[in-house]
């Protein structure tokens, strides 16, 4: 192949990472699939202590790792710029996965179902404590009573300014809008932090 080598140098290429976190059946797979070509990704991980007590490993004492499947999608913005989506389980026993995923991440979408809002608490706590920009996307299931974004924000006790968006994870445009809101918000958070550093650190 004669394509110019500079077209494919890793140094020029930029990859951005967005996490989609939520409880079972909340629509993570649907959301990742509606905006990108989705593929399953297998990780073999050490079982955390919490996981060990939850996952029944009785009779298989040697089992120290577990296979965790994540949803993985890629959106190519242009040559050399791609956004990678990782849909991961929302239970706090999967924190070991989030630690890795959150490193260098642009931000996270916490996907919520108003019938089981408590499923979001671990993820909301996690991202708030680590100052990782995140938004809450409420997947509006047809059979669930509809709540306003404000009600959800209050119920989750979100920090002021954390966006809450209502979405339909099955709908491509709706999924796109969720991601756009996250990128916009992450940009605002980042700019605010930059200004903070400029303000507090002596220049020179």
């Amino acid at each position: 192949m004669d394509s110019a080598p500079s077209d494919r140098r890793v140094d020029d290429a930029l990859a951005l990472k967005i996490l989609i976190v939520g409880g079972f059946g909340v629509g993570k797979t649907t959301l990742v699939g509606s905006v990108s070509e989705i593929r399953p990704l297998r990780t073999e991980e050490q079982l955390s202590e919490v996981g060990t007590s939850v996952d029944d490993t009785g009779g298989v004492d040697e089992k120290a790792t577990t296979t965790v499947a994540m949803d993985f999608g890629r959106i190519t913005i242009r040559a050399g710029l791609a956004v990678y989506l990782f849909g991961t389980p929302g239970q706090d026993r999967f924190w070991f996965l989030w630690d890795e995923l959150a490193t260098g991440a642009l931000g996270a979408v916490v996907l919520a179902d108003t019938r089981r809002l408590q499923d979001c608490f671990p993820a909301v706590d996690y991202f708030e404590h680590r100052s990782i920009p995140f938004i809450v996307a409420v997947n509006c299931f047809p059979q669930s009573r509809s709540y306003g974004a404000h009600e959800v924000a209050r119920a989750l006790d979100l920090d002021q300014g954390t966006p809450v968006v209502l979405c339909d994870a099955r709908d491509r445009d709706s999924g796109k809008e969720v991601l756009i809101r996250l990128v916009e918000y992450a940009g605002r958070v980042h700019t605010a932090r930059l200004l903070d550093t400029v303000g507090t650190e002596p220049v020179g």
Partner: protein
Amino acid sequence: MTEDMSGTPPHHGSHWYDAEAGPLVRPYAMTGGRTRPVTTTVRFDLIALIDLQDDAPEAVGKEVETLGPEHRALVDLCRIETQSVAELAAETDLPVGVVRVLLGDLVELGCVRVSRPVPPAQLPDEKILREVIDGLRAL
């Protein structure tokens, strides 16, 4: 496409087992029992980008004895285009941990290069974010 499951083996390959049976070759067999990459200087983030070194084909040829089919599958994928660690794992259907070990070997052999990791808490500049937003809109 229909497949006769009643006795006669399918023509293509020897895939008499299926995904439900789990991996036929256990992950540690592909890594020679190793769970960590040999190289400790490189961290293989899921979105770390992997590229072939310019002289990779020669290097692969030289060291071909020590490389397994999984190594070569990774090299072949990188030959097509720059790949992320996650893509390589999804594409080869190998656990991420295994891919990291195999990539560590390839880095040691000088077959592939890894992009510099994005430092935590550092976001790309506004121009890039703008591009991403416009790109998402245009999807």
